[in-house]
């Protein structure tokens, strides 16, 4: 929102104070000022002059040769404006003047001397009008400095609308002026208004409101005999500086009052609208708003009607059919207060926001509608003295809100602030901001003014803010808290994530990536992957991104596809969120998952797969001191997994993830040469698995014996954990460990060499002592179909 300092000065005397310093304090105490614009400071030497003679330029169709009377003499001027005429008063930039920074010098134009420039409003920077010269009324004496008559010089600052969301009272200059009055410790002047009681004997306007919860108050009044159509220059300058376009007197007046008091108003042409019903319609229909667009009106949308015909969307925009036109001479003025939630719903249904609806959605003060109408009438009488009010001020006050009173004591204020702000200062600040304050000892009773009572100030903490922001946060003495020492609760998921990242990055040289929670359907389609049905986003930026992902792996595959040339051999991982559909309570089954992808263009897929297996096993050892096991051929849930070379990762009897290579279809599309292995761990499942203590056993001080047994068997089909269990069972008390010393796979079948380590705590074992155990093992293995290979 744009705020004019000239306008502020209408309501508070800021003479002798540094404007920039005040604006800075406004930033620190009220809302951030984003930009400051200085208008008219680089314009000087522009005076009121009269055109005394007009002669056509002999050689130009457009140019005229003027004699301009500056009050003391006649000056030559060559002018290209179409609206020049003898007797017209214009803004004349004299020789040596500056107009918006442009120096004006004597010049030869098309062969004739020109000693100055007649200005358009656009050239003066006070409007967008460049259709001709600015015309000045006859009552202003020749030679008068134009800046002494018009508010051309002004400082305008911009406040981000978002920072005013909670302050409906700051959506007009008067509310801002109240802040300046408080910050500068100067009084706030009342707004000059028309006394409307003089119209009490006139007939009322027929106003009816259907639902008091949607329209709290509707104030209307009628006037006629309006003959002026253009607004006074100073009003137009202010509207222009504050970002509003001058339209016609009545529309400008509604905008002016809105920018001044924050209350949206609407002027209906009285010929079309002389009575008002505020209501909703049972069925949808089309309605043309005054911007010329046809809008689909839904049954929940509140409408302004006249004799049953819709003439405006309440609080948003009027209808085209009842707008003020060039020949309009009479109006019905609307000053109303609507339900903010209803306005917001209408905005979202129509997909439109206007200056009016932006204010209504902030919860405006219903108390102010008659005052704003009275202000309109005051300004109308100034601009068009012939205008005549023909109705009484008719007021439908449907829903009154109870005044809010808040009590607190000094101790509360001291505790909440942590500093001491004196009673005198608290009372002064709140009073200046419009609150009614009474004190009794250390207790305060505060009446909230109606313009702050609509959602904004409701509890005592709100009053702390009012007092402290004016006190100034820079003036706070700051101090540390005095809290007792307590142990910090420990987070397993966070610790798991951090240690996992450390292992993967530091030991296995993987790269951590970040991605999105949704599937990228287009990128997956390139890989021949169709994402599984899953929970969808209703308002995704693109349909490609409307489905949440179930697994981390497809995301990693798309990342790998983008990084084919990064290195021959690399790995990536991410701990991210996925969704496995809905739980029974219809909530998303959100899972934190670790996804890992290894890429190798130089090695074999099997080696990469087994390397990834080692990583998973290592991770489980690190985080839980547990041995991972792998259920071969299980854990297949997705089409991109290899149907044979996929294994479920099992810990403590629970499946917590999988290890896989890619289905040939996906692999071929990703990269012909690269071996790719992927794995996923459900970190939430992992979090539920307890950590074992590190297993320690006293080593024997005596030498042991290692026995290697080479067995002929189908190694690919071997279940090692099961075999190991058999060996251990048969191996007797001295069998300390079973490891794999060698695997051989050749054309004539395959074999595996188990290394059995025997050791005793009590004696040095001899071969003959352990031979019975070795024989038992061989027997157990033979029962499994393995054949002992002897050299």
């Amino acid at each position: 929102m744009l705020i004019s300092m000239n306008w502020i000065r209408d309501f508070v005397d800021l003479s002798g104070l540094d404007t920039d310093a005040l604006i800075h304090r406004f930033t620190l105490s009220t809302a951030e000022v984003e930009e400051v614009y200085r208008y008219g400071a680089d314009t000087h030497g522009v005076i009121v002059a009269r055109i005394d003679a007009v002669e056509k330029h002999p050689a130009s169709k457009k140019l005229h040769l003027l004699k301009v009377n500056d009050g003391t003499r006649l000056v030559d001027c060559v002018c290209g404006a179409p609206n020049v005429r003898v007797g017209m008063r214009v803004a004349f930039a004299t020789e040596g003047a500056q107009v918006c920074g442009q120096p004006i010098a004597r010049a030869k134009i098309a062969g004739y001397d020109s000693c100055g420039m007649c200005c358009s409003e656009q050239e003066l920077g006070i409007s967008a009008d460049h259709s001709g010269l600015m015309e000045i009324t006859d009552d202003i004496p020749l030679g008068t400095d134009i800046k002494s008559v018009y508010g051309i010089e002004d400082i305008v600052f911009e406040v981000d609308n978002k920072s005013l969301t909670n302050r409906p009272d700051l959506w007009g200059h008067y509310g801002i002026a109240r802040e300046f009055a408080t910050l500068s410790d100067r009084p706030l002047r009342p707004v000059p208004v028309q006394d409307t009681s003089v119209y009490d004997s006139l007939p009322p306007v027929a106003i009816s409101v259907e639902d008091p919860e949607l329209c709290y108050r509707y104030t209307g009044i009628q006037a006629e005999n309006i003959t002026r159509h253009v607004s006074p220059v100073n009003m137009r300058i202010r509207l222009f500086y504050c970002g509003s376009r001058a339209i016609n007197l009545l529309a400008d007046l509604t905008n002016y009052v809105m920018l001044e008091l924050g209350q949206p108003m609407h002027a209906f042409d009285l010929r079309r609208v002389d009575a008002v019903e505020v209501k909703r319609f049972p069925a949808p229909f089309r309605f043309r708003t005054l911007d010329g667009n046809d809008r689909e009106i839904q049954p929940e949308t509140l409408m302004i009607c006249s004799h049953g015909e819709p003439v405006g969307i309440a609080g948003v925009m009027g209808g085209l059919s009842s707008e003020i036109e060039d020949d309009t001479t009479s109006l019905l003025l609307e000053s109303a207060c609507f339900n903010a939630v209803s306005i917001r719903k209408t905005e979202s249904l129509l997909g439109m926001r206007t200056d009016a609806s932006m204010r209504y959605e902030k919860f405006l003060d219903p108390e102010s509608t008659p005052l704003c109408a009275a202000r309109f009438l005051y300004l109308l009488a100034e601009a068009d003295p012939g205008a005549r009010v023909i109705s009484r001020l008719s007021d439908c006050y449907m829903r009154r809100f109870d005044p809010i009173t808040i009590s607190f004591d000094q101790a509360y204020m001291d505790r909440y602030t942590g500093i001491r702000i004196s009673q005198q200062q608290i009372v002064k600040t709140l009073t200046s901001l419009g609150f009614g304050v009474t004190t009794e000892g250390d207790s305060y009773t505060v009446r909230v003014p109606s313009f702050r009572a609509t959602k904004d100030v409701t509890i005592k903490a709100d009053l702390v803010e009012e007092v402290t922001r004016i006190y100034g946060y820079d003036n706070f003495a700051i101090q540390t808290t005095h809290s007792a020492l307590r142990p910090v609760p420990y987070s397993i998921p966070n610790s798991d994530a951090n240690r996992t990242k450390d292992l993967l990055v530091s030991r296995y040289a993987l790269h951590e990536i970040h991605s999105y929670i949704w599937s990228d359907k287009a990128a997956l389609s390139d890989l021949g992957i169709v994402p599984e049905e899953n929970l969808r986003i209703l308002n995704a930026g693109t349909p490609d991104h409307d489905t949440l992902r179930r697994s981390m792996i497809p995301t990693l595959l798309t990342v790998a596809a983008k990084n084919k040339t990064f290195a021959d051999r690399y790995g990536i991982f991410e701990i991210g969120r996925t969704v496995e559909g809905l739980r029974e309570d219809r909530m998303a089954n959100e899972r934190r998952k670790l996804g890992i992808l290894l890429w190798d263009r130089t090695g074999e897929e099997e080696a990469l797969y087994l390397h990834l297996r080692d990583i998973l096993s290592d991770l489980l050892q690190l985080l839980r001191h547990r041995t991972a096991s792998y259920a071969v051929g299980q854990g297949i849930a997705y089409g991109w997994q290899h149907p044979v070379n996929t294994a479920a990762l099992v810990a403590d009897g629970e499946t917590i993830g999988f290890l896989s290579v890619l289905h040939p279809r996906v692999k071929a599309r990703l990269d012909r040469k690269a071996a790719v292995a992927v794995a996923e761990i459900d970190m939430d499942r992992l979090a539920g698995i307890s950590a074992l203590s590190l297993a320690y056993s006293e080593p024997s001080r005596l030498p042991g014996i290692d026995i290697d047994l080479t067995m002929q068997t189908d190694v690919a089909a071997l279940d090692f954990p099961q075999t190991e269990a058999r060996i251990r069972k048969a191996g007797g008390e001295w069998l300390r460990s079973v490891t794999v010393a060698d695997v051989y796979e050749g054309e004539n079948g395959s074999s595996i060499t188990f290394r059995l380590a025997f050791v005793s705590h009590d004696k040095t074992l001899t071969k003959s002592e352990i031979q019975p155990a070795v024989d038992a093992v061989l027997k157990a293995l033979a029962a499994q179909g393995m054949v002992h290979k002897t050299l």
Partner: protein
Amino acid sequence: MKTQIESMRARFCEQAAAADTPDKLEELRIAYLGKKGEITGLLKELRALPDDEKKEAGRLINALKEEAENTVARRTEELRNAAEESAVRHARRYNPTIPHTADHGSYHPITLVQRELEEIFTGMGFTVEDYPEIVTDYQCFASLNIPPYHPARDMQDTFYLENGQLLKTQTSAAQNHIMRKYGPPLRAIFPGRCFRNEATDACHENTFFQMEGLMIDKDISISNLIYFMKTMLSEVFARPIRVRLRPGYFPFTEPGFELDINCLICGGEGCPSCKNSGWLELCPCGMVHPNVLREGGIDPELYTGFAFGLGLTRLAMMKYGIKDIRDLNAGNLPILAQFGNR
């Protein structure tokens, strides 16, 4: 016997001088001093000598034995020294200046910044909490004093899901859960990924990271909040920071603040980065709104607290000079691999 000893001594000395390897010396030692060695043999012959010669011969043989032992030891030492010197002289020179080509991994820059912050906060007694990314309307809005149709909501900014849940737009969505989980007093930070449905460009992402902090106890004041923020941010930036608080509106705080720090690029003098103001808007913060405390099961008459939000993504970009926010989620390894543990 005497001449026999003398000639043996001469032979030994000659052979010892000729032995040029430790192995040859060992052979020599065994040949003379071993169990079946020549000198050992002489000692055996001693028994056969008459008593008057025994003493003299015994002395001579022992002298020879001692001399032989010393010679072998000395020569062994000499040869070892020579071999070591030669090994040093002929050593191949290793070059540590040639870079190794071993793989190295990398952390995502967000992780690096998040960990730095977590260390600072855990050092100040804060627990680190994790929270889902998919939340309910209640968690993200209603529990934070933002009822339906509140102006602070905007349909355009929130990703809504077909089951009525939404992607959390702010880490504050965890406040209610944390208050209920721990109860007062509490100190927690909760980093998390947030989502806003907006068009992306170099400065805007629909997926980004925040870290929120919450401290609730008896008598926590605005004065405490300012002190804490100043101390905490000085730690984060590893230098003394000046802070400035301005009123800021967040429905879940009262009062709420926008916190500015003195511009780190110009030091507060004014430069293009701070739009010549000398200040950088860094993080929103505020006293927890009494309604939010009450909703979290905490009595606002007994307890007060403050909350603050740090833009992790923004901090990471500031710290490393990352210009395009989209690079963070794009999985571009030439960029990400630079944040490695080389």
